[in-house]
């Protein structure tokens, strides 16, 4: 069989496709920049392109009013907003306000629960990105003993 230029191009394209497959299966990189931001507005801008959020009563943010131990503060977020793409938890007064951000693929419910550390009394914000915009809900948690120091 004669090897033509077309065949070489075809096979190299096939190889490229194969080589890029594992990348497609991998998750997006850990968003280091949003986590190293020292202000909530900067963390949001780095992650979502803006720090402007629309307050929404369709977000159910559950946090304790008073956290006796700032090292373990339970947080849960659910929402009736549709087409949710991500949920982020921001603790305004933490040295690094972005606590966690969750990517929600289609089929996964916009509903997460975790536990976070809080250095001091602060507003805790749930920021939800949907295909229509960026929404938020906020609630203050009073911290008796901070959970970031040694």
């Amino acid at each position: 069989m004669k090897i033509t230029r077309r065949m070489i191009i075809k096979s190299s394209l096939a190889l490229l496709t194969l080589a890029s497959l594992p990348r497609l299966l991998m998750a997006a990189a850990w968003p280091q920049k949003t986590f190293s931001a020292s202000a909530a507005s900067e963390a949001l801008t780095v992650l979502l392109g803006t720090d402007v959020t629309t307050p929404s009563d369709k977000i159910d943010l559950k946090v304790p009013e008073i956290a006796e131990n700032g090292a373990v503060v339970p947080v849960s977020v659910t929402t009736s907003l549709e087409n949710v793409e991500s949920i982020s938890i921001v603790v305004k007064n933490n040295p690094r306000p972005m606590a966690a951000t969750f990517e929600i693929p289609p089929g996964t419910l916009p509903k997460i629960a975790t536990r976070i550390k809080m250095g001091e009394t602060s507003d805790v914000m749930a920021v939800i990105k949907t295909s229509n915009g960026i929404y938020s809900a906020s609630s203050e948690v009073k911290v008796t003993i901070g959970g970031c120091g040694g």
Partner: protein
Amino acid sequence: MAPTIKLSAKLDGNVADIKSLMFHPMETGSRINQDTGNTIPAHHITQLIFTNNGKQVMVANFSTAVSKNPFFGFSFAGAKVGDTLKATWVDNLGETDEIETQLV
């Protein structure tokens, strides 16, 4: 090494309710060792990824502000008995662990 992930999955219709618990120090990198005066280096999970039958159903990106021995819960639709749920974490030092369970 002892498993570092505890995973529980409950099926309600086609919705799987997932709870997970990792054993990890989640060091912030800003704490001081009182005996030596040295900073304790950061050591924390960065990503926790769940797949169901190979399809990604959750990517959780953690900062150092997630509590020691992190708990994480979420739910996804389209699940059925016999599906293989897999949880994998990676930390900032490149350490990793994973666990698999069958949905029942």
